[in-house]
C-alpha cells in the first residue's frame, strides 16, 4: 500500500484498492456511467484532500495534476456557494475552445468529467446531477 509519508498517495504503488461491495464500488460504477456518454473523454472522482478514488482518463493524461486542480476547484465552488448563501453547490461546467470540464460536488468528493467541445452539455449535466445524488447516497448509508 502507499506510504503517505513518502509517496504521493494518489498513486499507490500497488494500484487501486481491490474491488469491494462498498463505496469504492459505487464510485467506480458512478464514474463509468459518465465516461460512457458520447463526447466524454474521461473523468475522475477526487476527495476534498485530493486523493483520487477512481479515474478513467486517456493514457498520458496528467491524473495527479488534474486531481489537485479539480479538488481545489471543487472546494472553491463549495465555499463560494456557502459564503454567498446560494445553497449547496451541485454541478458546474467550464468550457474552452477545445472542450469542457464538468464538476459535480458531493460530501464524498468531486466528480470531474473532461469532454469534447461539441458534447451535449445538458445531457452530461443531467447525468452528473444523478451521479452526485448517488454519491450523496453513499455518504448517508453504511459503507458496507
Amino acid at each position: 500500500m502507499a506510504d503517505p509519508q513518502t509517496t504521493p498517495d494518489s498513486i499507490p504503488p500497488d494500484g487501486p484498492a481491490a474491488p469491494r461491495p462498498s463505496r469504492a464500488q459505487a464510485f467506480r460504477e458512478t464514474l463509468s456511467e459518465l465516461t460512457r456518454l458520447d463526447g466524454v473523454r474521461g473523468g475522475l472522482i477526487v476527495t476534498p484532500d485530493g486523493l483520487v478514488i477512481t479515474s478513467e482518463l486517456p493514457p498520458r493524461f496528467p491524473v495527479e495534476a488534474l486531481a489537485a486542480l479539480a479538488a481545489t476547484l471543487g472546494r472553491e465552488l463549495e465555499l463560494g456557494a456557502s459564503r454567498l448563501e446560494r445553497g449547496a453547490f451541485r454541478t458546474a461546467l467550464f468550457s474552452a475552445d477545445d472542450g469542457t470540464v464538468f464538476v459535480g460536488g458531493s460530501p464524498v468528493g468531486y466528480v470531474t468529467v473532461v469532454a469534447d467541445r461539441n458534447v451535449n452539455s445538458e445531457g452530461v449535466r443531467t447525468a452528473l446531477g444523478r451521479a452526485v445524488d448517488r454519491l450523496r447516497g453513499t455518504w448517508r448509508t453504511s459503507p458496507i
Partner: protein
Amino acid sequence: MGLATFLERTWSGITGLVKPRSASSLFRLADQFRHEGRYEDAAELITEGLRVSPNIAVGHLLDAYLHVVFREMPAAKASFRRVLALDPYHPRALFGLARIALEEGDIEGCRPFLDRAIQYFPDFPEAKALQEMVATWTAPAAGASTAIGTISLERLRLPSGAHDLVVTQADGTLVFAQGSEERQKHLGLHMTQVYRIASATLARAGLGAMRRGVIEGAAETTFLRSDGGVILGVALAREVEVGAGLVQVGRLWTDLNIKA
C-alpha cells in the same frame, strides 16, 4: 454497521487479545479504508493508532486528510502542523497547508508551502500543478481602477430575477458588483478564484482558456463569461436552461461593451 464490518471487528478484537495491533498496522489499514471511501472506519483506527503512538507523523497526516474530507479545516490545519513538528520537510503536510491557505484566499501564504514541498520532493505533480497555477496570479496593480457603480444597470438587458451581477478583471480588480460592500467583495473574490482555478484545470486538460461557465447551486445558477481579461458573472433562477442562460449572459456582455 454492516455484517462484514461487524465480523471484521469481532475477528480483529479476538486476534487483538492475543497480540495488540501496532500503530503502524492500524495506520496502514486506515489508509486502505480511506482509499475505499470508508472514512468513519479509518477515523476510528487513526484515533486508536494515535492513542498508542502519538508521535508518528503518518498518523497525524491521515488524521489531517480525514479532517479535510469532513471539511474540518481548522482541525486539519492543526494536524498538518503536528506532522511538520515531527518532520519539518514532510511534502504532503506542506501541500495540505498550501491548499488550505489557498482556499482561505491567502495566496502569499500558500506559495512558500508549495515551494518547500517541491524543494524536498521534486517529483510531486500535484504540488507542481498548484505552484504553476499560483505563479500566474498577479495582484491588482496599485491604483487600479475600481470604478464600482459607474455601470448603469438601466442600460443593461438584465434578465428578470437576475442578481449578483459582477464584473472583475482576471487579476482580481473588482470593476462592478451588485449588493452590499461585503457581498461585492465576496462576489469579486469568488468569481476571480473560480475563473483562475477553472482556467488552470482546462489548460491542464489541454482544452484551452476558459470562455464560459455555469455553476448550479441548490437555489440558483450562476453564469460566467470571460475573454481572459475580464470576467462577467450573474446569478439566474435555477430553472433557466444552460443554453438560454448563456445567451442572456452574452447579451449582458455586449451591453457592457466588452470585446471578446
